[in-house]
């Protein structure tokens, strides 16, 4: 936002315009107000306990007990101060509230809310984090696949179908071979097949990518449900895959609180850590990533410098399918252990939301996936402790946040320039 003022005699002066963005102070203000309401209009009395260790942990931490009403009041005032601080940054400082304020605010608000909601009760922190990760793993794999595919310019609405078909393939192959590794490969190949259809129709036949994606979801749902009802229920031996064993990483898994959550997991979760890094590194630090982004942002330019646009798109959509397939395998080879009809239950669409909310960036999309996993898990935690907030509204949260994100109310979410546009060489 720089404006040049060419004066007649004077040298050209670059005047730097200050754009003040009041969105984030206002948003923080609204939430701070909500915090004040929790503290003073609807006070909860008693003590809130946060359990930090499970009995299996080597290092035992004492539970963290706070007096509910006092803590909530102090936290609410802190929230107000943070919102005012953000406003001060906008008015006096750079014109934009720094990101760390929003992050600290979010963490404090969450703590406020949990303290308030669990008055007189106990919140098992490790259990909550384990549940969050379990719900997030398929979302993160789906989001990574979505990022790869959309960075290359192919809209991937079919994440749901890829997850479902990955889960289905893993269940069948895992049951027949008894080898979880083979089943994992089968999940990748299965999801890749869905990708091939998406790629063939959207790139070769130039069918609208949204239509192919939507129809593929219906097709995969129909196929897997058909085989589930017709074959898997009559022959349960085809639907009992061998699960991956839990492999604790020595040393790391003994870290208090986070250790058991992050490092007492199956291979699939460890693959996820590597995949997030690899996709980030590949996209932004390697020739592959540069080409992929070029194809998604400006295919004509990419074509001019000799990149085969459609071949690049085709194989990267296939790669995206393979990545999503691992997320599908997580259902049948880890967390659930067998295939169920429509078992992904909309996770593909939350992954799509994570891609958009994460602004087509693998790290941000991963964080968005964790956030959505946390929101989904929070409703079950609150359900157990008997929270006053209806669980349906917690489940609604990822979708509402995404609508705000695409509408530009929370930051600006801009898709790759050529996302969804077929490239027709002229």
């Amino acid at each position, binding site marked *: 936002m720089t404006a040049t003022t060419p004066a007649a005699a004077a040298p050209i002066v670059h005047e730097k315009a200050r754009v003040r963005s009041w969105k984030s102070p206002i948003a923080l203000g609204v939430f701070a107000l909500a915090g004040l309401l929790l503290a003073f209009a609807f006070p909860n009395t008693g003590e809130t306990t946060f359990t930090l260790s499970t009995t299996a942990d080597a290092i035992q931490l004492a539970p963290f007990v706070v007096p509910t009403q006092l803590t909530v009041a102090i936290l609410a005032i802190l929230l107000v101060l943070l919102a005012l601080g953000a406003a001060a940054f906008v008015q006096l400082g750079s014109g934009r509230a720094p990101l760390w304020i929003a992050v600290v605010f979010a963490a404090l608000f969450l703590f406020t809310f949990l303290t308030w909601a669990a008055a007189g009760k106990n919140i098992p922190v490790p259990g909550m984090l384990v549940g969050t990760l379990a719900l997030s793993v398929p979302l993160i794999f789906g989001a990574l696949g979505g990022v790869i595919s959309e960075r290359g310019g192919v809209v991937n609405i079919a994440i749901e179908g890829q997850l479902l078909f990955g889960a289905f393939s893993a269940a069948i192959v895992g049951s027949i071979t008894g080898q979880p590794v083979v089943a994992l490969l089968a999940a990748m190949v299965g999801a890749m097949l869905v990708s091939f259809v998406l790629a063939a*129709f959207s790139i070769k036949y130039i069918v609208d990518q*949204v239509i192919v994606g939507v129809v593929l979801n219906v097709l995969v749902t*129909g196929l897997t449900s058909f*085989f589930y009802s017709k074959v898997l229920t009559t022959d349960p031996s085809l639907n009992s895959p061998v699960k991956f064993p839990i492999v604790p990483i020595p040393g790391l898994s003994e870290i208090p609180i986070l250790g058991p959550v992050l490092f007492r997991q199956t291979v699939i979760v460890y693959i996820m850590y590597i995949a997030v890094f690899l996709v980030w590194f590949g996209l932004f630090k390697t020739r592959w990533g540069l080409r992929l982004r070029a194809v998604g942002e400006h295919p004509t330019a990419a074509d001019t410098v000799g990149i085969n646009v459609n071949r690049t798109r085709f194989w990267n959509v296939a790669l995206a399918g393979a990545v999503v397939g691992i997320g599908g395998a997580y259902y049948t080879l880890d967390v659930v252990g067998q295939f169920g009809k429509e078992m992904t239950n909309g996770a593909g669409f939350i992954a799509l*939301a994570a891609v958009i909310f994460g602004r087509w960036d693998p790290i941000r999309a991963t964080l968005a996936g964790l956030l959505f996993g946390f929101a989904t898990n929070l409703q079950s935690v609150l359900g157990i402790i008997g929270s006053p907030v209806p669980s349906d509204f917690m489940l609604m949260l990822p979708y509402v946040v995404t*609508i705000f994100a*695409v509408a530009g109310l929370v930051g600006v979410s801009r898709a790759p320039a050529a996302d969804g546009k077929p490239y027709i060489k002229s």
Partner: protein
Amino acid sequence: MSDEQIPAQGQKPEQPVEVEQVPVEQRAGDAVAAEKAPPPPASNRVLREILSSNWLISLLAVVVALLVGAVLIAVTDPAVQKAAGYFFARPGDTLRAIWESVSGAYISLFQGAIFNPKRGDFVNAIKPLTETLTFATPLITAGLAVALTFRVGMFNIGGRGQILIAAACAGWVSWSVSLPAPLHILLATVAAIAGGALWAGIAGVLKARTGAHEVIVTIMLNYVAFYLISYLLKTPGALQAPGSNTPKSPPALPSAVYPTLSDLLGVGSYRLHLGFLLAILATVWLWYLLNRSSLGFRFRAVGENPHAARVAGISVTRVYIVAMLLSGGLMGLAGASQVLGTTTTGFAAGVDAGIGFDAITVALLGRSRPWGVFFSGILFGALKAGGYTMQASQGIPIDIVLVVQSVIVLLIAAPPLVRSIFRLPKPDETPRARRPRATATPKVVTK
């Protein structure tokens, strides 16, 4: 190639009208025009191609999809699997088993969808046809809703959410207001239309004001509506039936229920209701709107090329909002036919029954033309009605209907694929004969 034609045309500047007469040069002229005005976005072009392919492709797509369904039925049939075990000893057995399983399935599909002579007299034997039309009713109106947005170059993937909100509105009016029958039906239907329009309007306004893509917004609104309705159905005093613990609404008052065909004729137990008549009216209305009204002209202009429409003075943002509102209203009609016609004894959060997504396939099969949507809605209604019979009598899961539907739509969306399967000629192959003549002009001149 078209670039080479431009100088040749420039040789005769005194006769610019010639551009209109020679097709190849006309294409060159289009290329020049395209440099001046921005070309329409890819989605508009793609949708136009979907609209312009012919009915033969649709028919062949249905045939291929039924063949795919037949393969699925055959390979999962235990009798076929058993016979295939000794295929090389007696191949006839395998073939006979395949024939029996597939023909049995498709005969029961026909009997469940159109006519079942085993049901005795004609009044009962024809009942499957009325079932087909009952299933088709919401599919037609929802398909019209999707088709309307396709013609404007948009997607309405939010049928599920719009139908849920509309069902909640119609449902609430149907049991909490007491009015004489015709007024009550009217009020409940209007409430459904308003509810659907409101929910779709959010996506329209966000697209027009902030540029948020309507595909993402409508998908997300589906889930928001689902959890909102789930919550209201669990909340006493909102949508939950009084004195009940299940998330289900109270039944509609009799004065709000659509009269059925049996009420009219006094025979049989047909479930076909007033909603079907409304679906016919909606089809006629949409046909008039799109083909005869100035609003429809604006819709189609924006659908063809929003940039050109804006230059021509059409408010594109207003067209987006109005189109989404009307589309949501049609979805609302589908929701009304669900709660006022089909399941009048109270509904749960699954009242949309997948119609919102089926509607996309209906609109695509109908090529986004009102009467095309009408008949493709009836075809998919027949698949649904027959699918339930097939599930009951042959043990073939109803999910196969989803497979058949999606294969139909995939093939229809990609006419070149169907053409290559059946080795059909390309539709634009006829002007090829002119090409040698066009290239016969000496190339030296162009350089």
